[in-house]
């Protein structure tokens, strides 16, 4: 939690400082080849999955409906992406009943949190290169 709170702050500062330079360099596509995305975690690189992991990083648990509302997506789409994260061991799914209503809750696992932190480090490193470049 401390790490994610810090990242929220750091991201704002990083964006303020290097946002304009990044925009200016944004059209020079060839410079991007210097930052090889070889070790990028493709599993959470996808927007929907990145959103799910980020949302769970600041909540102990979120229900399926809460995630669906937050990500503004459909049942099917969320199910597919959640399953992929679950299969990778990044999130944990708990199914229960609230009275007679089935309830599905998701929580971020320790490997999932580490994966998000690695991903954030990777993004930070890319931005740092822009600053130094």
């Amino acid at each position, binding site marked *: 939690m401390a790490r994610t709170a810090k990242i929220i702050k750091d991201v704002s500062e990083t964006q303020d400082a290097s946002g304009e330079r990044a925009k200016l360099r*944004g*059209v020079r596509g060839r410079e991007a080849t210097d*930052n090889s*995305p070889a070790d990028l975690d493709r599993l959470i690189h996808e927007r929907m999955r990145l959103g799910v992991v*980020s949302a769970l990083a600041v*909540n102990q648990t979120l229900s399926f409906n809460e995630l669906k509302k937050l990500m503004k997506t459909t049942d099917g789409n969320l199910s597919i992406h959640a399953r992929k994260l679950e299969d990778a061991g990044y999130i944990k799914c708990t199914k229960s009943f609230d009275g007679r209503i089935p309830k599905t809750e998701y929580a971020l696992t320790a490997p999932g949190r580490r994966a998000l932190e690695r991903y954030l480090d*990777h993004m930070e490193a*890319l*931005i740092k290169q822009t600053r130094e470049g």
Partner: protein
Amino acid sequence: MAVVHRSHKATFEEPPTLQARAMDNLKFIRETMESAASFTAVPGWGMVAVGATAALAAFVAARAGTKEMWLLVWLAEAFLSLLVAGWAISRKARAANVGLLSGPGRKFALSFTPPLFVGALLTIVLLRLHLSEVVPGMWLLLYGTGVVTGGAFSVRIVPVMGLCFMLVGAVALFCPVAWNDYFMAGGFGGLHILFGVEIARRHGG
């Protein structure tokens, strides 16, 4: 020629750099985290403590001889509650490693304080007009409004508590003046204790 120009331009339109995407991804993560996070630093046991001091204040204020003394007791209670709540909120936020003035915490503070400011201003005006009888109802009503608006960025039970304060305040405005101390005790004392216990049970102290 125009067609040739467009096609030529399209050839050189390249995807954004990895750096630009990284910025965009970090922005997306930050926005998702901020919209997903609830301000859960509302302290359950801290609220119970505030409720207990308010109940005591209601007891003392009911026995105050003058309106000035009554007001003084409640102003002292407001100051004490502010200290207790501030300490409890920062303690809970620290324990959860949540920034008090980032994201939902900031939104909570910005939504909670305007009704309190209005309450303070109206208190001065009403006392000048010798309408102190309506002050308790107005306090409860505006405090509840602040809790409801601030509670929109917190866990669900917080705005519910605000609504209860508003309800008690609204009823107090139309009831005999002699009942004011009961409403103050029931509202600032009883509701804080009741909801504080529930928040502590569900979301920690």
